[in-house]
């Protein structure tokens, strides 16, 4: 399962090691043999649809729900059966869980008071933290008087107050408006980088994961589908599921006619590299992202050039999404994203004919049975 060979330095153990963690709720298996390393200082996103087990895994790391079997080590210490109070983490929930009857300052100082710090030291720390999250001067306000985004920052400040070595974020941005969300995720990422705190974030929002994470853990039905950097996940999905879940993807169903050549309807697609490693006759899907469908300089490509017609055009503001008729087959269609420039330059409109190329290096091929999807 150690997919990231390069970060595995010889003797040093990862900050957090998750080994064969399984969680069952009655007959339902929420997590199945999860093994994962999280390294010091990185921001890891658990990404997946609801019910994929990402929150369950986070709660197991925190000790809020114990795993049924498997071990978890933090800095080499076995914390598998340790209650949350004896683990080292700060947590922010989707609801923020701010104490409504305490002021912002008291909320942030909540964990400090228990550490028997002096009153002055606590006040200084609160001021420092409020500054850090950009809410200076809000000490005496009650949470109800703050906006959602501000409450989220207070929750973050409270989680950071005791200087934990690990930050856990459970859908921290989901309750916010779209605009605030975009703004805050930049801020949080920057803050995390500045503090260098190891962070695990759970989200179902791929955009959030792509823009914030150092590494993304794509989960589905209690297992890990893929671990990798946002670019790796986006560019080289390891399964049709990941390809489909992250971003938009065309799935062209076909079968291998000979090594490096796939027949999709009447269209021949040639592939190379790992994509060519299928036996003749294998049912496969050929995947290409809509933005990778080439029109400009299509003639320069040596292979995979086709003449297609535009069936529909959908105007989406900064770009257009076109549905192309794959020549000769009515049941296969290709979605392509065209910039407004391209649309103008090539005079593309409903019904227009055009030459497109499917660049070899942008193609992914998976066995068709791997995913039950279209």
């Amino acid at each position, binding site marked *: 399962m150690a997919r990231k060979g390069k970060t595995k330095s010889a003797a040093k153990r990862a900050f957090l090691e998750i080994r064969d963690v399984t969680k069952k709720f009655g007959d339902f298996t929420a997590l199945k043999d999860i093994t994962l390393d999280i390294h010091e200082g990185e921001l890891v996103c658990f990404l997946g649809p609801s019910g994929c087990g990402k929150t369950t895994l986070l709660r197991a790391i925190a000790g809020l729900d114990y795993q049924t079997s498997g071990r978890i080590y933090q800095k080499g210490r076995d914390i598998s059966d340790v209650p949350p109070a004896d683990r080292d983490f700060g947590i922010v929930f989707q609801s923020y869980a701010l*104490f409504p009857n305490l002021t912002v300052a008291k909320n942030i100082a909540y964990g400090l008071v*228990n*550490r028997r710090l002096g009153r002055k030291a606590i006040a200084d720390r609160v001021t420092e933290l409020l500054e850090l999250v950009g809410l200076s001067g809000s000490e005496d306000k009650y949470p109800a008087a703050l906006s959602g985004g501000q409450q989220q920052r207070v929750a973050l400040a409270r989680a950071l107050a005791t200087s934990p070595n690990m930050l856990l974020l459970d859908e921290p941005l989901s309750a916010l408006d779209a605009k605030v969300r975009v703004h805050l995720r930049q801020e949080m990422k920057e803050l995390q980088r500045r503090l260098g705190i190891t962070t695990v974030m759970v989200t179902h929002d791929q955009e959030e994961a792509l823009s914030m994470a150092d590494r993304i853990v794509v989960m589905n039905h209690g297992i890990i589908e893929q671990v990798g950097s946002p670019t790796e996940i986006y560019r080289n999905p390891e399964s049709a599921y990941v390809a489909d879940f992250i971003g938009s993807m065309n799935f062209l169903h076909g079968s291998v006619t000979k090594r490096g050549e796939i027949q999709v309807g009447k269209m021949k697609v040639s592939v190379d590299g790992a994509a060519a490693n299928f036996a003749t006759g294998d049912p496969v899907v050929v995947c290409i992202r809509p933005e990778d469908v080439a029109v400009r300089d299509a003639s320069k490509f040596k292979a995979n050039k086709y003449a297609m017609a535009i069936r529909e055009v959908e105007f989406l503001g900064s770009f257009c999404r076109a549905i192309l008729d794959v020549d000769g087959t009515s049941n296969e269609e290709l979605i392509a994203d065209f910039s407004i420039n391209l649309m103008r330059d090539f005079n593309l409109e409903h019904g227009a004919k055009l030459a497109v190329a499917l660049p070899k290096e942008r193609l992914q091929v998976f066995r068709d049975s791997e995913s039950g999807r279209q």
Partner: protein
Amino acid sequence: MASVELSPQAPQGSAALRRLRHLGGEAWIMLASILAIVAALIAFLVLPLYALLKKSVEDDKGAFVGLANFAEYFTSVGLVQSIGNSLTIAFLTMVIACLLAFTFAYALTRTCIPFKRVFRSIAIIPILAPSLLPAISLIYLFGNQGLIKGLMFGESIYGPIGIMIGMVFYIFPHVMMIMVTALSTTDARLYEAADALGTRPVRVFFTITLPGAIYGIVSAAVVAFTLTITDFGVPKVIGGQYNVLATDIYKQVVGQQNFSMGAVVGLVLLLPAIFSFIIDRHVQKKQVALLSARAVPYHPKPHKMRDMTFLAYCILVSVFLVGILGTAAFASFAKFWPYDLSFSLVHYDFDAVDPNGWSSFWNSLRMAALTAVIGVVVIFLGAYFVEKGQNFARLRSGFHMLAMVPMAVPGLVLGLAYIFFFSVPENPLSPIYATLTILVICTVVHFYTVSHLTMLTALKQIDKEFESVSASLKVPFYKTMFRVHVPICLPAISEVMMYLFVNAMTTVSAVVFLYSPDTKLAAITVLNLDDVGDQAEAAAMAMMIVATSFTVRVLHGILMRTLNARHSAWRTR
């Protein structure tokens, strides 16, 4: 599949053990607290009830006689007749009270009559008084020397008629409040749709209003039935020769010292109570889904004819309620009813008629205060553990089930069970018998369920992640409970304390078996004074209870207002 099923079983057990070793000090504190409360409920509820059950199959000397007592009971014509009497009274009272209360609640929720708050306050009056009070007032009004005896047209108030009128007064607020809740939770859009389709008002009532409130109505009817069949104060004072189950228990135990027979009657009385309890639970479960979150609240529009009719009706009901209370007040201040009606405080000189007169009132105050304080602490902790506890899920849900039991146990039965359990010298707990302590414990247990549910509702509204946050910040749960949950729950805490206090002041049923001369309570003094014919003094003592309950309610109101003002800062909207 089988192998997958099997393998995790073995490590699961050992994992639980490993975790137990890792459990921090606070988990042990929580476990110890839950076990303490569970042990208390077993000692003060389960074991006494078991003692009652055991007593019913024993003779006077404690020898096992099987069902002989039951056989004797069901062959005694007089006793069996009480079952019929009780059922008749309970059924008729239920029907009358539900009709009256539904109409009243309808006026408060679905019409535009003025003074709704005033009417609502008046409707609460009976809660403040012991159930003996309406019976005493009815005797003053319609008794042998009654002021308006003529209205009875020759019928006697001493008997079923008196019991029923007194009962309707006594249970009215309980029934009315459930009806108001049932009628308040409706979706205005249904009415708008009916209106748009041109539906006639009568059809709207029978197709929308009534079906929407049906669960509330059933629930109210069940409460009415149970309260009536288990109440002891009204039939004791005004029942005359008309025997019911509640008075039978009292007569068997206090009058004839026939404890085994008392236990049998107690078990018979337990049946309708348990039955109603089951119906009510069932109905409550169904009610939850009735109202969607997107429902639009209903606001009645003025309609002159309808509003005037309902206003007249509400005034009529209010006159009845205030009249009953007023009669007792008036009688307590009248020098010598009905001959000399001049004002006098002579009937408030309780020590002149009963050596424990005034002291019983102070006993009641102490008992009620202790019940409120001790009760609220135990009930809050219990509800907190049920709702917010982290480990020991099975223990917590078991405790919750146990907390539901007192609702199904009538006060008389509980009191009787306490005699059987605590009066036995071999019982290590027997020293508390005949002390104020046992009265406090009995009262807390008697009113546990409603308080527990009130507290649970308040706690459910608090974010369930507070415990997780608290743990992540290394703050023990009890600190967060004190700093966060208690302040947020203050309104509910005040509510429960008031509920316990007022009920402790007015209750007779459970404590009537448990008091000693030193620990006599005001409500029991009312009963005794009435028994020996000192009616004016009985009315005066009942008025003392009303005045005390009223004061506590007002204090609660003031406290709520201050809390609201103080807490509005941290309430979201």
